[in-house]
């Protein structure tokens, strides 16, 4: 739009009816997507310039990688590989959701459980998970079971820790208030501790999901060449860096979709937790 056009636009759009372009511009300016896409464009451009100048066999250009993503999406073998990998994510992460949340709840409320769980939880948290994968493969074999267990072990600690922290940070005065109105232990759980812990539990679910996806890919890359890991290994061997990076982008994409689903669920079931300290 030329600068000469804008005064006339503003003159017509006085009063409550704002000029259509100005409102569109302010809406675009306010949307976080504008800046997200801007960052992507900048990073993509830098990548493109860097790769073109380098002319390396191992570093694809940004545009080649995008083409690679499209090629992969059109190939049924890609979908097959993702399905194969995601089986371990599905079972492993579901199991860690159940076990992690229950263990976290129990540890938060009962001193005896906390006492015996705490050291093992610390061990789980500090152990580099990749280091124990060979151990699990040796004992469980290279089937789906060992991949499930690995995803489970990757996601478990953050689920326990966040759930426990969530219950702990529920204001004790609320429990006291409920008790004064005659609440039973069951009612305290259902009506105070669980709703109070929900935002932190959902944070744990999001973090755990990220770790579960990492576990899923790491085991396939390092030890059991199936699914996504197998794709990556194959493309590395055949010097197809555009496809290799394409797979990585697809994995990131999958993780982002899953995490935004969790976020949407969180907003729905725990809307009160979003009064934040964020500044405009």
């Amino acid at each position: 739009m030329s600068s000469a056009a804008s005064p006339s636009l503003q003159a017509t759009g006085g009063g409550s009816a704002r000029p259509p372009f100005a409102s569109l511009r302010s809406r675009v300016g306010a949307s976080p997507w504008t800046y997200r896409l801007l960052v992507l464009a900048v990073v993509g451009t830098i990548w493109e310039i860097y790769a073109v100048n380098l002319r390396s066999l191992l570093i694809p250009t940004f545009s080649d990688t995008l083409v690679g993503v499209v090629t992969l999406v059109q190939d049924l073998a890609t979908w097959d590989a993702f399905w194969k990998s995601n089986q371990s994510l599905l079972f492993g992460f579901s199991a860690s959701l159940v076990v992690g949340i229950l263990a976290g709840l129990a540890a938060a409320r009962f001193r005896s459980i906390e006492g015996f769980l705490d050291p093992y939880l610390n061990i789980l948290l500090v152990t580099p998970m990749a280091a124990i994968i060979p151990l699990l493969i040796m004992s469980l074999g290279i089937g789906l079971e060992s991949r499930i267990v690995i995803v489970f072990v990757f996601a478990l600690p953050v689920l326990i820790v966040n759930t426990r922290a969530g219950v702990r940070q529920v204001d004790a005065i609320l429990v006291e208030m409920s008790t004064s109105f005659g609440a039973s232990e069951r009612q305290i759980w259902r009506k105070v501790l669980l709703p109070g812990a929900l935002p932190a539990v959902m944070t744990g679910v999001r973090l755990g999901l990220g770790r579960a996806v990492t576990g899923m890919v790491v085991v396939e890359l390092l030890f059991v060449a199936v699914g996504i890991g197998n794709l990556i290994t194959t493309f590395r061997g055949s010097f197809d860096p555009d496809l290799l990076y394409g797979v990585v982008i697809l994995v990131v994409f999958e993780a982002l979709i899953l995490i935004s689903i969790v976020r949407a669920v969180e907003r729905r079931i725990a809307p009160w937790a979003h009064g934040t300290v964020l500044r405009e």
Partner: protein
Amino acid sequence: MINIDRLSKTFPARGDDAHVEALKDVSLEVREGEFLTVLGPSGCGKTTLLRIIAGLETFEGGDVRVRGTSISGPGPDRAMVFQSFALLPWASVVANVAFGLELRGVPKAEREARAHDLIELVGLTGFEKRLPGQLSGGMQQRVGLARALAVDPEILLMDEPFGALDEQTRRLLQEELLAIWEQSRKTVIFITHSMEEAVLLGDRVVLMSPRPGRIVDIVDVPLARPRASAVDEMAGSAEFAQITADLWRRLREMQLFRRPARESAPSIGIGV
């Protein structure tokens, strides 16, 4: 109505701190329909006393009876209003007010109808759907009061309920509490650290002293009832000023770390 007989409570030693005698040989009789205020410096055990009556705290010696029956925990005959409001942050005003009824298994439609009545009583009509975080402190405590009244207790236990509010909001809530109480005539035990509040609201003021927590006196308040419509005149009257001044003099004597009087203060040489 409530008989407290030689009540004693000790908090065990913790780390370097010696054990604390929160209450020692506290005896008190609360009359039916009475507005009793409990006044004392911090650490005098007034909140502990209230928590014991509420059934939230155990005690070692003595006995607490409500209508002749020794208490063994919280009961439907008592409801508490908390200093920090203690509202569920995820529940609407209606749900918070109905919470006590919900715990007692009252069906949803019934408890919400009751909650609406009380929301009207405390002047929160129009705010039913709000969450506590969207309300001012004064409004939050109105919710706390409505929640306690919703279960229709015989005894209302109030633990410095207006202590976290600003002066103006506090005065308005005091007036409203008086108006509600003058209509319902529930038995109220009201903890406070403000002399003015204790005198303005109470029929009698129980004066407590720390280390060990004990009752030192019970002062009758001769101000006429009903008071709700005459709070401002009362607060400005000579009689009111005299009672509060007297209470303050006695409270000041209890302060452990009070300044020595000016004439006996040691002279400190300031470098010249």
